[in-house]
């Protein structure tokens, strides 16, 4: 499953912030998005996930195989850990097994209500959702927020296994995940120049 982005431009708050972004995400490949805060990593991922339209350009990928995980975990606090994952399994028509909980070290919390979880545990539950999905292309926005070093390793193991199965991942992160041979995509060359200084003449007034 490959994802090819051609000359895409994305906007936030009515301003184009990245343009002429080109990259190819190959089967079995992980691509790390780099760039300072506010450069547009989240906006790019949201656009690729189909949550907002591109200004220009196009993306070649089978959208049914794309899964997106945002800053928020999307965990329902009144449901138990198992019920949360079960819902996503049913939505995507897959089976949920205890192995998923084991691999993210939340098997002990299976029947606990998500409201009682710590933020790191909640994050692991949010990431465990990805293991339930049949999706091949993962778009992950800061997946390691509030995770400790051990949990980051669990997550890296999951990504490695996912890549080995022929999946791919586009990850926005600031830390080193410790993944073997990943490629990086630095977004700074694609930043649009700041708005031209206003010389007192505004077309909108005409």
């Amino acid at each position, binding site marked *: 499953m490959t994802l090819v982005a051609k000359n895409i431009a994305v906007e936030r708050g009515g301003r184009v912030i990245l343009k002429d972004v080109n990259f190819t995400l190959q089967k079995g490949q992980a691509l790390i998005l780099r760039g300072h805060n506010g450069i547009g990593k989240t906006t790019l991922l949201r656009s690729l996930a189909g*949550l*907002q339209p591109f200004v220009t350009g196009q993306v070649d990928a089978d959208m049914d195989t794309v899964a997106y995980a945002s*800053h*928020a*975990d999307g965990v*329902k606090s009144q*449901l138990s850990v198992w019920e949360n994952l079960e819902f996503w399994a049913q939505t*995507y028509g897959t089976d949920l097994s205890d192995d998923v909980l084991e691999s993210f070290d939340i098997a002990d919390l299976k029947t606990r209500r998500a409201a009682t979880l710590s933020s790191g545990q909640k994050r692991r539950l949010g990431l465990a959702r990805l293991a339930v999905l049949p999706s091949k292309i993962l778009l992950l926005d800061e997946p390691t927020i509030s995770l400790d070093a051990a949990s980051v390793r669990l997550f890296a193991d999951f990504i490695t296994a996912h890549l080995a199965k022929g999946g791919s991942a586009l990850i926005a992160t600031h830390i080193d995940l410790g993944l073997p041979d990943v490629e990086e995509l630095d977004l700074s060359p694609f930043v649009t120049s700041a708005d031209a200084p206003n010389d007192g003449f505004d077309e909108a007034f005409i």
Partner: protein
Amino acid sequence: MIALLRRDLRLAIRAGGGFGLALAFFLIVVVLVPFGVGADMAVLGRVAAGVLWTGAILACLLSLDRMFALDFEDGSLELLVTSPLPTEGIVLAKAAAHWITTGLPLSLAAPVLGILLNLPPHGAVWMVISLLVGTPALSIIGAFGAALTVGIKRGGLLLSILVLPMYVPTLIFGAEVARRGSEGVALGSSLVMLCAISLLAVGLLPFAASKVLRINLK
């Protein structure tokens, strides 16, 4: 879709889900009316249908702002929209869950509360029928309103102002069915119109609501 419906129903009956709130609110509104209007049985019998319908509409409104707002806050709405579920299906499942937790119990409780308002027994039958036919329209119109206001902090009040005018046709024909039923006169076209409103709303509004939802998630 079934999974989403089941999840929403489960959330509604869990602590803090708000199931029963609408019903309790309906009860209180209806009980307040005789205090305000006075205990004249003839007057109460005449206004019963209108009071029950107005009470049901206000009770429906109570839980609308939670429909998408809670999922929006914890991020699950974005995940749902990017899932293989069609957005129209998400709206329908949410509206169905809202109807099962408010519209349905309200319809079934109405004849019992009708006793307090001197609603005649044959009127109670038409009261239940009119509410059962009309409340699905309330839930789906409400879903559209909730989709419009989803990103807005404390959008509940705005939601009420947007949604209440849209409830007017349902209220007119719903109360008309119940009133004519309790007076024992021919229903005329009122029941047909009520059915038409519900069917049109259920058929068209999920598409509008899904479009609005996607715009609000941008």
